[in-house]
């Protein structure tokens, strides 16, 4: 952004998180002993799997609502849709498309709820959206564990618990496993490239770029900059904020379906619980901050974060002789990155506020003198 004068110090400070990750990866890759082909394969798989989910985070950031921990809501909507679709035995790409369509009403309803609640908690959207995700997780469990069966008909015993209600711990999505990824897939010297998935992601990126230029997108940015100014300019602030959350939730639902069709099975009660955290961590690793994120951050983030994720356990095992160390290390890094990003954001915000206050004070003094 600062094209005026390129200063190395500023560049380093502005990109400290990605640089740190590049160093971690550079350190761990040789130790882990994975072949470049393997790594490349994994990275491309994970890019296709996760990028769409992470893209869903961009719009609330644009609207100044911070990192949308409530994207978990969309993930849950996607999961409910997938459970239904796999009970109806709709397979392959039609199954994926149907699941996406079915997830929309759930996502919209949850997004509306989330947006309304966040409007009541302005200034602490993030912690609120984080608690919402837990709250809705309870509701999700109520629906999936108790209502599916007696109230929502579930026919197949491969999905339903033997006790007659509730869904099993894992739902097999074997019949739609990687159906998006495999269609049009090409292999380049042992590396499988899921072309269709990447095309969908690219279309999504274009849609976001286009969306930024629409009236609604401009409004969102205005709301993100300053709510009061936006309101004075005649923008319906509350409505705009709700829409941004709804869009994010719907996209997260689609993203979750893409994610799960790649995984090939659905852990009914845990697939969604960590997804928000990992997606947010990946976005931040890509150099995004709480108030600014670009499409570039998404891709850099997926690559760096998942590279770390792949190599850390085996590097940790080779160094310490204990495989769990690496597992814990990558969890620690994920949380650590989010913590650091949040701290940086808050200190920056505070500094800006202070300098604004100082300026006001100075102006006042000038005014008194005059």
């Amino acid at each position: 952004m600062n094209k005026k004068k390129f200063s190395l110090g500023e560049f380093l400070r502005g990109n400290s998180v990605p640089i740190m990750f590049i160093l971690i990866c550079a350190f761990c890759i040789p130790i882990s002993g994975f072949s470049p082909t393997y790594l490349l394969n994994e990275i491309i798989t994970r890019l296709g799997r996760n990028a769409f989910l992470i893209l869903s985070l961009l719009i609330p950031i644009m609207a100044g609502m911070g990192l949308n921990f409530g994207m978990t809501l969309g993930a849950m909507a996607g999961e409910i849709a997938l459970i239904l679709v796999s009970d109806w035995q709709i397979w392959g790409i039609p199954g994926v498309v149907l699941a996406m369509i079915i997830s929309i009403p759930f996502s919209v309803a949850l997004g509306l709820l989330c947006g309304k609640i966040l409007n009541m908690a302005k200034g602490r959207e993030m912690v609120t959206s984080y608690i919402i995700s837990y709250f809705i997780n309870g509701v999700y469990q109520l629906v999936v564990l108790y209502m599916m069966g007696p109230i929502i008909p579930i026919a197949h015993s491969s999905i339903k618990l033997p006790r007659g209600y509730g869904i099993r711990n894992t739902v097999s999505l074997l019949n739609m496993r990687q159906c998006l990824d495999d269609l049009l897939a090409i292999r380049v010297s042992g590396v499988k490239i899921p072309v269709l998935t990447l095309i969908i992601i690219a279309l999504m990126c274009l849609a976001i770029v286009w969306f930024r230029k629409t009236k609604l997108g401009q409004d969102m940015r205005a709301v993100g900059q300053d709510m009061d100014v936006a309101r004075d300019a005649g923008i319906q602030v509350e409505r705009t904020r709700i829409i941004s959350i709804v869009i994010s939730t719907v996209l997260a639902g689609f993203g979750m379906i893409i994610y799960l069709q790649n995984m090939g099975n659905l852990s009914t009660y845990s697939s969604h619980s960590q997804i928000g955290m990992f997606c947010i961590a990946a976005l931040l690793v890509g150099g995004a901050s709480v108030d600014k994120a670009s499409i570039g951050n998404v891709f850099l983030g997926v690559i760096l974060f998942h590279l770390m994720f792949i190599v850390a356990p085996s590097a940790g095992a080779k160094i310490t002789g204990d495989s769990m160390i690496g597992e814990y290390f990558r969890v620690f890094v994920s949380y650590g990155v989010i913590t650091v990003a949040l701290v940086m954001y808050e200190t920056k915000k505070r500094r800006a506020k202070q300098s604004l206050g100082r300026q006001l004070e100075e102006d006042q003094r000038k005014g008194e003198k005059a």
Partner: protein
Amino acid sequence: MSEVKEKKPSGSRKWTARILTLVVLIAIAAWMFVIGRGHTVYFDNKTLELENGESIGTLQRVDVYVNGNRVARLAKRERGMATWIGQNFKMTLEITKEKGDEPYTQEVAIDLPYSLDGIVVNLPGYLAGRSQDEWMSEFVPVASSTTEEDEEIITDEFGLGDM
């Protein structure tokens, strides 16, 4: 993707657009229902006992090709399976009737009933040209009672699965 967020245009146009989006989505969903229904087809090379006491004998060997891949090579009294999306099931059979016969191929197209998940096709019966309800039956999975204990539901709020 961008439902319920059309901007500005006057009230009625906005609503038409919304309803149109909704209708299109529902239409796509319905279409997916039709074309996406998956079935598991089982083919038996078994003697078919008919109600009138007649019976149709087995074939020496049948190779079953679905979408160009061989999914089963059936000797007498064997069963194979394939998955199929949609109702217009097609397969190619390479049939050896008796021992020593020259194998011949036959294209087979079967309309699968929408409501059945698993469908058993008795090949000798089919090839003998009998009526559909004589060689087609529903596959009923045998509930293995030993594994039907209630599994413990793990609703770990912080389950740290692999990504």
